[in-house]
């Protein structure tokens, strides 16, 4: 159990540092980094606070603490993936609309050029 919590602590610290560096280098936009920062901070707190983890385990009616930790982290990741799917879908719609608009404007521009010639 202690080893599991130590590994979780290490992963959350690595995730936290990686996200912060990515934000600093503008590899990820600040608004999207917030979710990752929140998740890694939550993992860090849970892995260092056995009392809180036990409380959540009892509240969820689960038999052991590692399972509770695993389920909480999995649930948060699932929510994040779903959120990013929504964002990707919206970006794709916008991208298609922009590509169509660009194609139509280029077509009209070339037609005007041809007309002037």
């Amino acid at each position: 159990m202690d080893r599991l919590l130590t590994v979780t602590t290490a992963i959350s610290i690595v995730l936290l540092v990686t996200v912060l560096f990515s934000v600093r280098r503008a590899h990820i936009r600040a608004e999207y980094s917030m979710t990752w920062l929140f998740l890694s901070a939550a993992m860090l707190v849970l892995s260092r606070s056995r009392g809180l983890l036990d409380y959540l385990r009892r509240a969820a009616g689960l038999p052991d603490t590692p399972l509770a930790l695993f389920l909480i982290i999995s649930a948060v990741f699932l929510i994040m993936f779903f959120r990013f799917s929504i964002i990707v879908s919206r970006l794709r719609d916008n991208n298609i609309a922009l590509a169509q608009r660009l194609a139509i404007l280029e077509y009209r521009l070339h037609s005007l050029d041809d007309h002037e010639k």
Partner: protein
Amino acid sequence: MIRGSHPNSLLVIIPAFNEEGAVGQVVEGIRRWVPDAAVLVIDDCSTDSTIAVARAAGADVLPLPHHLGLGGCVQAGYKLAWETGFQYVIRVDGDGQHDPCDIPRILERLQNSGCEMVIGSRWIESNGSRTGPVRSLGIRFFRAVLRPILGKPVCDPTSGFVGVNRRALEVFKSSFPLEYPEIEALVVLQRRRFRFEEVPVKMHPRVTGRSSITTLRSFYYIAHVLLGVFVNILKYEHRRRLPGTGGSAKGD
């Protein structure tokens, strides 16, 4: 530039992706059968000489900046048709499966019936059109699924040989399915209480290339289209829109 300058103006759109082997014949056939119509090839980022062949055959070409897939490609044509004032648009595939001699029949039905969409159907009459067993099974399945949704039977729901009028264009310029659009487009129109009819057409084997829907992909196709159909039925935006009010669902 193409322009729908008269009340019965027709634009024939041809979505094309690597169709250099067939698109020239298709354009020439259209120009022979409907000489007054404007012909627009929408090139979905072909890597061959589709654009050059289409232009040489006398078509206007709308090149897309990157690959959008069939739905995005067709919708770009609908948007341009709407903005340039065309009253009718007929979609013809660039692979030579659709016979341009059927275009006047589709146009006539569009003009005389007043319905928003006319589908060129290979199944209304026995006309020698052939299709594979898997596709045939899929078509039967979707006929059964669509009948209660549309409130009337549709013989060839997967046909891409489709004509629409300006009322349908107003809807499709804003809301058009992106992948496998034929079946979902019927549901999109049904939600606006628009009408469709079918006319018999003959379809040939494709001149070049292969269908993107292989046997394995046909299962994905069925699941994807089924989901799309039910998503379109459940969309909130469609419930609050009355027929003829138009408006934008998404896109620009």
